């Protein structure tokens, strides 16, 4: 059961996207507001008619000759506002989506409500439910008709932080039970990282990059993707020398040695990035071996503590206008007595440095 999408449209929201999502795979669509993520879901669901081709499980949903209506697409869609039927009880909301006899529909609805931990709430009306409960009803309603593809349009955006965390865990568990393609539209990269197998970055209706989540987050294809996936350490540089195993990268604060993972980069200007986790703080108490790799000295200009982590922003001595972002465990920050204004040394670990063609 695979979903293959290749759609184009010029208006109302421009769209030019080709993607594929396999059975049991979750593909997260990320991008800023108005980038076309929701429009893409609507096209797949049949609520909008673009040009192109959509095939799911071997059945053509859209091509030049046909465009199946939403009723015939076997799509489970969870809307951002859940779109529950306000006059129907929880049980009726779910049962209405189940084809077949009423008895079978009610039994299937009860089963799905139990699976999403809503047993006992069957007779409640949607307005009496919490945000998390509404989301679960919407999910049960989407899944009860045994869809060929599940589409989730920012399903966790309307609930509080605590509920969101719980719902994500439930979603991760539920995913193991359903062997269909799942498309998740989200603004939240953490959510995408936690739930999805692959990531598709969409901007202004164009698909900029898709691939395994870790690959997209650590090896963005361009500066645009890097910015969209919130990579903060993005700089300009120039490849000045290349040999069999390494290249030398000159940037505002010096020259870095970068081990080559794949093919050799051409000499000349490039963009490069490094995740905060790829920057190693030199211990002020006990120098380590790693301190020799791409060392850099600078002054701390910002320091924020939250959830057991410390975010440090560093201005390199050689390029005081540049800003390097580090993420450190709080105990490391405390042991080194880090504070704003303090001069520290860091190493930019070569294997984390990623070069992007300009």
């Amino acid at each position, binding site marked *: 059961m695979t979903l293959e999408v290749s759609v184009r449209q010029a208006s109302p929201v421009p769209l030019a996207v080709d993607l594929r999502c396999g059975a049991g795979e979750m593909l997260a669509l990320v991008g800023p507001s108005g980038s076309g993520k929701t429009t893409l879901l609507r096209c797949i*669901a*049949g*609520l909008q008619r673009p040009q192109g081709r959509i095939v799911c499980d071997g059945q053509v949903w859209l091509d030049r000759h046909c465009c199946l*209506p*939403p*009723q015939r*697409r076997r*799509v*489970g*869609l969870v*809307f951002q*506002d859940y*779109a*529950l*039927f*306000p*006059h129907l009880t929880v049980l009726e909301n779910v049962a*209405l*989506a189940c*084809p077949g006899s009423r008895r079978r529909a009610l039994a299937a609805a009860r089963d799905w409500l139990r699976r999403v931990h809503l047993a006992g709430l069957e007779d409640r009306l949607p307005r009496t439910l919490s945000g998390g409960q509404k989301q679960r009803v919407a999910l049960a*309603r*989407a899944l009860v*008709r045994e869809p060929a593809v599940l589409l989730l349009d920012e399903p966790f955006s309307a609930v509080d932080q605590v509920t969101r965390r719980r719902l994500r865990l439930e979603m991760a568990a539920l995913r193991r039970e359903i062997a269909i393609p799942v498309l998740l539209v989200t603004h939240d990269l953490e959510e995408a990282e936690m739930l999805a197998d692959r990531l598709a970055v969409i901007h202004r209706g164009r698909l900029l990059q898709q691939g395994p989540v870790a690959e997209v987050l650590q090896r963005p294809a361009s500066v645009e993707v890097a910015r969209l996936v919130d990579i903060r350490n993005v700089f300009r540089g120039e490849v000045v020398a290349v040999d069999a195993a390494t290249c030398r990268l000159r940037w505002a604060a010096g020259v870095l040695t970068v081990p080559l993972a794949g093919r050799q980069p051409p000499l000349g200007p490039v963009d490069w990035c490094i995740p905060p986790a790829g920057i190693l703080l030199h211990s002020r108490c006990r120098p380590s071996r790693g301190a020799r790799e791409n060392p850099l000295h600078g002054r701390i200009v910002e320091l924020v503590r939250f959830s057991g982590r410390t975010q440090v922003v560093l201005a390199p001595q050689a390029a005081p206008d540049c800003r390097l972002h580090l993420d450190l465990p709080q105990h490391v920050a405390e042991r080194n007595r880090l504070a704003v204004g303090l001069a520290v040394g860091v190493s930019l670990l070569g294997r984390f440095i990623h070069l992007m063609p300009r």
Partner: protein
Amino acid sequence: MEWPAFWVSLRLALWTVVLLLPAAVAIARALAWHRFPGRFVLEALIALPLVLPPSVLGFYFLVAFDPQAPLGDWLRRWTGTTLVFSFPGLVAASLIYSLPFAVQPLLRAFEAIPVSVREAAWCCGLSGWRTFWRIELPLVRNGLLAATALTFAHTLGEFGVVLMVGGNIPGRTRTLAVAIYDRVQAFDETGAATMAAVLLGFSLVVVIAVHALERRR
């Protein structure tokens, strides 16, 4: 108390409600969800009876359905009857005159249904007809009740159009409102007061009943 006039009024109100509501539902639904050229003109035309003097509407109705006029002549040749000074004519005029009272509450009710709810119904596999029947109609229930109450009460008290189009034929087109006018003209204030009280009481009961139903939801 002129009971024949009361029954004519009641029959007129019921026929108007029965015939007008399905049409009003279709019109309101189309206006709420479809954008088409001339939509605002159509909305204005529907609202016109709210501001138009009933005698003007009645006059044009008489002109249009006069057996000498093309439309009236066509109708007479096809149906063998004329709408002027007849009960069907009263109903036809009443349908036009009460149109805004039926359409406006329904239009607001349809507009209040989020688009995503209808789309969710389609994605749940519900056909257009089932979506209307299971989702839309229950959600516009209050609008439907308000439209019923307004149309019924408004038709029951209609005077100008009724007098112009139906005349004053006892047992056929003489409604309670016209009968009250007649009694006042004849200085029979007691008779007029009795009928006015009956009309007031009946209208009040209908409107209260509809509001009670609306609140129960």
